[in-house]
């Protein structure tokens, strides 16, 4: 089973990289661009077919290591 994990900066936390990219997109003429937020995307292969167990374990992985919940949110999708 494969998991796609998304780690994103909390809405109330400043994202200077996102702001810089927003500025660059405006400079390139993409004036329709509003806020830009940069996050992380992880692909995690899991040696299990038990969906419930995979979700439970992924939550622990995110809480312990993959995200710092002081400044980041996380979500994941399971495939297969």
């Amino acid at each position: 089973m494969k998991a796609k994990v998304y780690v994103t900066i909390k809405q109330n936390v400043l994202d200077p990289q996102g702001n810089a990219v927003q500025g660059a997109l405006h400079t390139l003429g993409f004036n329709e661009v509003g806020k830009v937020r940069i996050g992380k995307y992880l692909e995690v292969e899991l040696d299990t077919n038990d969906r419930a167990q995979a979700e439970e374990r992924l939550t622990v992985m995110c809480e312990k290591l993959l995200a710092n919940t002081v400044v980041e949110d996380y979500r994941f999708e399971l495939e297969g």
Partner: protein
Amino acid sequence: MKFAVIVFPGSNCDIDCYKAVEDTVGQSVDYVFHTATDLSAYDAILIPGGFSYGDYLRCGAIAQFAPVMTEVRKAAEEGKFILGICNGFQILTEAGLLPGALIRNNSLKFRCHQVDLIVENPKTAFTNAYAQGEAIQIPIAHGEGSYYVADETLASLKANNQIVFRYAGDNPNGSVDNIAGVSNEAGNVVGLMPHPERAVAEILGSADGARMFTSVLNAWRERNGAASIR
């Protein structure tokens, strides 16, 4: 008094910390590798700056699970003196031993220069040789030193007097409330982004960091002096 300087793969201020202990307080100091499983011999634990585990995932994210960190947690609970400098501060926040998190500087630049600091709490184990509100100069060197805490945590930090240092004047990284260093509730664990070990002699540009080391020796003597008199 015995100091430990923890060495992770990617630590690069460990030698500076070791030398700073020798030069400022002349106490016994050892390098202790990240794989160590016993810190019982040490009274103070210094977690130095650098790029532990290449800053992979997040600064300090991997280091928080190194074997030695179990011992650092134990030492913190026992009330031993623990100082995290720069990457060491990031590791202590990731480990949950200090509140908050350190994120990318708002300038997106690696800032490496002297900064003016205000000593906000001279009652911690690492600041007792300073005066309340004293202005000092210590250099910073980081790309991810913007201190963030949620509003409710910030309120509790203020209520418990856990803000140890603030940047005076220019805020170099966008830290919330100009915070440069914090302590845990008990005051035995302190973390800061500036590098006191790089400011221990006038020839280095400032000797203002030296008193962080004399402070912890004071704190240790106070604790053990009281016990040894009897």
